[in-house]
């Protein structure tokens, strides 16, 4: 049963206030949001910070619900929130087919190169021209996460097997 203590220690060491691993649905999204909101409320977080964290969480969670690739019968993904003295960290990880990695990297790299005004212009040009996809997305999630976060998005793609990888995404929101 050592893993229980190890997991507890890992969470404390990384200041993780919430970790969810498993299936992602709209109902789960609402529950995770409600827990994170309660946590921020009870610690008396500034409302401007709460709103930005909530915003980034929604896009992150709905990204997984809509886009996580079904890889080898394993649909599970992970979502966590860390709370440091100076910022909140919103992290997600989900399986992705290897052929989708390059497109995703290019999209996030493009966003990370833009400043505040560049992101605003990109947002406006996408929203004017986009149609809602079959999956229900507007193609605006990462841009919005970058705007609300005010920081660059971090990513990594550790390999699962020869067909798939694990897409890790990290966004941070500064505390005032």
């Amino acid at each position: 049963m050592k893993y229980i203590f190890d997991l507890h220690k890992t969470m404390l060491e990384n200041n993780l206030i919430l970790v969810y691993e498993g299936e992602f649905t709209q109902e789960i999204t609402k529950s995770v949001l409600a827990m994170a909101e309660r946590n921020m409320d009870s610690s008396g977080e500034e409302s401007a910070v709460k709103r930005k964290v909530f915003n980034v969480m929604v896009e992150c969670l709905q990204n997984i619900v809509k886009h996580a690739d079904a890889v080898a019968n394993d649909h599970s993904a992970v979502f966590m929130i860390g709370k440091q003295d100076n910022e909140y960290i919103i992290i997600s990880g989900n399986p992705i087919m290897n052929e989708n990695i390059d497109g995703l990297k290019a999209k996030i790299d493009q966003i990370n190169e833009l400043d505040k005004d560049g992101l605003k212009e990109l947002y406006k040009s996408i929203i004017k021209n986009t149609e809602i996809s079959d999956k229900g997305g507007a193609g605006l999630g990462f841009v919005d996460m970058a705007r609300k976060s005010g920081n660059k998005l971090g990513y990594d793609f550790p390999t699962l097997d020869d067909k798939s990888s694990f897409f890790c995404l990290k966004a941070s929101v500064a505390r005032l």
Partner: protein
Amino acid sequence: MDILNLEGTEDTPKIMLDKGNGIFEISGRSLPEDSAEFYQPVLDWIEEYSQDANPSTEFMFKLEYFNTASSKLILDVLSALEDIDGMSIMWYFHEDDEDMEEAGEEFSELVEIPFEFKTY
């Protein structure tokens, strides 16, 4: 014309569209699982309203939060309102919510409708 009245939930906004009483309001949180499906009745209602609109219409948005998929549909709603004579938008935002204020400004730059900004 029928009233469209939807109670708000934790992930869908309250909708009140009432031609007779001159109430046109979308308020609360908008992060539905399927934003296109959620907003379709609103777009249908506006389409019918546009056939015989009141001389002037003040359409109120008082949103606490909306996700990106909803933002696309809100733009679709605004685009549908754009063709109606006498249309104006009341965009409410919480007084310390700069992001919601900026979101309203961006929408106002994307459609040709007068916007009035108000805090609550």
